[in-house]
């Protein structure tokens, strides 16, 4: 049988975000994959060079809608390093608390998405319902469900009260019970095993070869965790285990994430019980000196890497962000080779992708453009600028 090239995306019913996979098939088996991203590229790194550090604090948080806090922690850590300041213990604990609450809601979300991709929507309904517990806790402390706006250069903006601590511990008790149930389901449920076992294999040598990150490599038996290897915030004093499995398949990636939920709960309990007294924010100099700094965190999806180069002005000279999904993309090609076409969605979902990238071609059906006419990025941009200008906005 001859080989068939099948384009999936950028717009496709099976995809949740715009990306393109050109899959070469031999019968039902995948033999090669070409991945194209960039459909929602927003130019944030360029934009940051024309914004002040305070403005960038808010921009960085909007890189991702799920692991927003990992980005903002990296940014504040970078600026604080260039300034040469040390934030208070209490602020470090609160940052770590938010990092782990974020991991909890992200892992619950992912478990639901994974269930959905294999047609197990009950799991999706259950986990997303439980995720609300975490969202409520985040909202209780910060006032926000998603972009918490907790950090400032020099510490955090909101304190954790006695009442908050009690509520967080109650929430952890409930979530631990639920997580025990999900562990049972993930290991024993036949529908999951049938779709996840021995699917999307990533051998340890390939995980290393492509510099993959996070739960994706830990499910291939590689013990890498930035929280343990290059500790930041209060991870030096917080007890937790790095979870790995050696099954190298989608099931392994499910198991790693489910077990990481227990570790996060353990960390959160420790933080709440040992929260040191003190100020939550230290005074920082207004002027950011010339310098450079690297900060990376273990975001829910893996290593999130930021680089700052400052030039002594109020705006950064260069700011670089590498999100975990980009690091894991080359490994997807390896995982997909030899799998069935029907398994492509779950294998892709197993890295927990979060595509941050710019729409370029759209079918417009209103305004001055002809219905159904395809317009390129430049004309779309001019159209947008004009649309806003007519409504009194300035570019």
């Amino acid at each position, binding site marked *: 049988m001859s080989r068939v090239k099948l384009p999936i995306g950028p717009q496709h019913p099976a995809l949740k975000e715009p990306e393109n996979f050109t899959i070469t098939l031999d019968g039902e088996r995948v033999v090669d994959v070409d991945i194209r991203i960039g459909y929602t*590229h927003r130019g944030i790194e360029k934009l940051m060079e024309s914004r002040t550090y305070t403005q960038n604090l808010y921009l960085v948080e909007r890189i991702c809608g799920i692991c927003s806090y990992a980005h903002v922690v990296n940014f504040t850590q970078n600026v604080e390093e260039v300034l040469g300041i040390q934030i208070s213990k209490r602020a470090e604990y609160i940052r770590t608390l938010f990092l782990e609450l974020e991991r909890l809601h992200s892992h619950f979300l992912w478990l639901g998405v994974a269930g959905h991709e294999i047609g197990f929507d009950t799991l999706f309904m259950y986990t997303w319902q439980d995720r609300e517990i975490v969202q409520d806790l985040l909202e209780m402390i910060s006032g926000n469900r998603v972009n918490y706006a907790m950090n400032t250069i020099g510490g955090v903006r909101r304190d954790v009260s006695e009442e908050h601590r009690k509520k967080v511990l109650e929430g952890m008790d409930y979530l631990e019970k639920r997580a025990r149930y999900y562990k049972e389901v993930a290991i024993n449920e036949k529908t999951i095993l049938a779709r996840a076992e021995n699917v999307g294999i990533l051998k340890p040598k390939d995980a290393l070869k492509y*510099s993959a990150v996070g739960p994706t490599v830990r499910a291939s038996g590689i013990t890498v965790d930035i929280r343990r290897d290059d500790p930041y915030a209060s991870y030096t004093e917080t007890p937790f285990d790095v979870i790995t499995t050696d099954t190298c398949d989608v099931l392994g990636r499910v198991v790693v994430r489910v077990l990481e939920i227990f570790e996060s709960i353990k960390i959160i309990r420790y933080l709440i019980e040992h929260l040191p007294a003190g100020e939550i924010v230290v005074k920082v100099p207004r002027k950011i000196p010339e310098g450079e700094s690297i900060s*990376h965190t273990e975001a829910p999806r893996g290593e999130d*890497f930021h*680089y700052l180069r400052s030039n002594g002005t109020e705006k950064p000279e260069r700011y670089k962000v590498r999100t975990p999904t980009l*690091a894991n993309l*080359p490994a997807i090609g390896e995982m997909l080779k030899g799998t069935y076409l029907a398994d492509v969605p779950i294998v892709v979902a197993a890295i927990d992708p979060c595509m941050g990238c710019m729409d370029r071609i759209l079918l417009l059906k209103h305004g001055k453009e002809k219905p159904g006419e395809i317009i*390129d990025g*430049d004309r779309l*941009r001019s159209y947008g600028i004009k649309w806003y200008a007519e409504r009194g906005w300035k570019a």
Partner: protein
Amino acid sequence: MTTTEELILQVLRELPVQMKRDRRIFISVPKDDLLKTINILSSELNVQHLSTITARDTGSEIEILYHFLLKGVVITVRTACSRDDPTVDTIVNIFPGAVLYERELNDILGVVPKGHPDLKRLVLPDDWVGGYPLRKDWKPPQESEE
């Protein structure tokens, strides 16, 4: 200093190494020595993880930073190429994980990694003709009047 840091400084002692703080080591090399240096990291120190590649326009040249991770220590190899002839050897043959990062460099700053197996656009549109957005003299394309 940890044993990993000591080992790194020992192996790289012939090179201009700077330890900026705990777990942050920088090495500056001319671009002709890039592959040699990265080979040392790979073969002698057994570095296996490339975190990413950063590049920036300094005004006079393009500075390129290769960030590696070894047991929690970030080792950054710093090199530079000229703005007019922005070529540098690809490191894909040593670190296959560099394949997308080098495509991104090419997109946003016009750096050409020599010997890259598949140098297509990554983040910018296929029909992009607006230049290299992260260069400091870059201006956004002007709005065309229709």
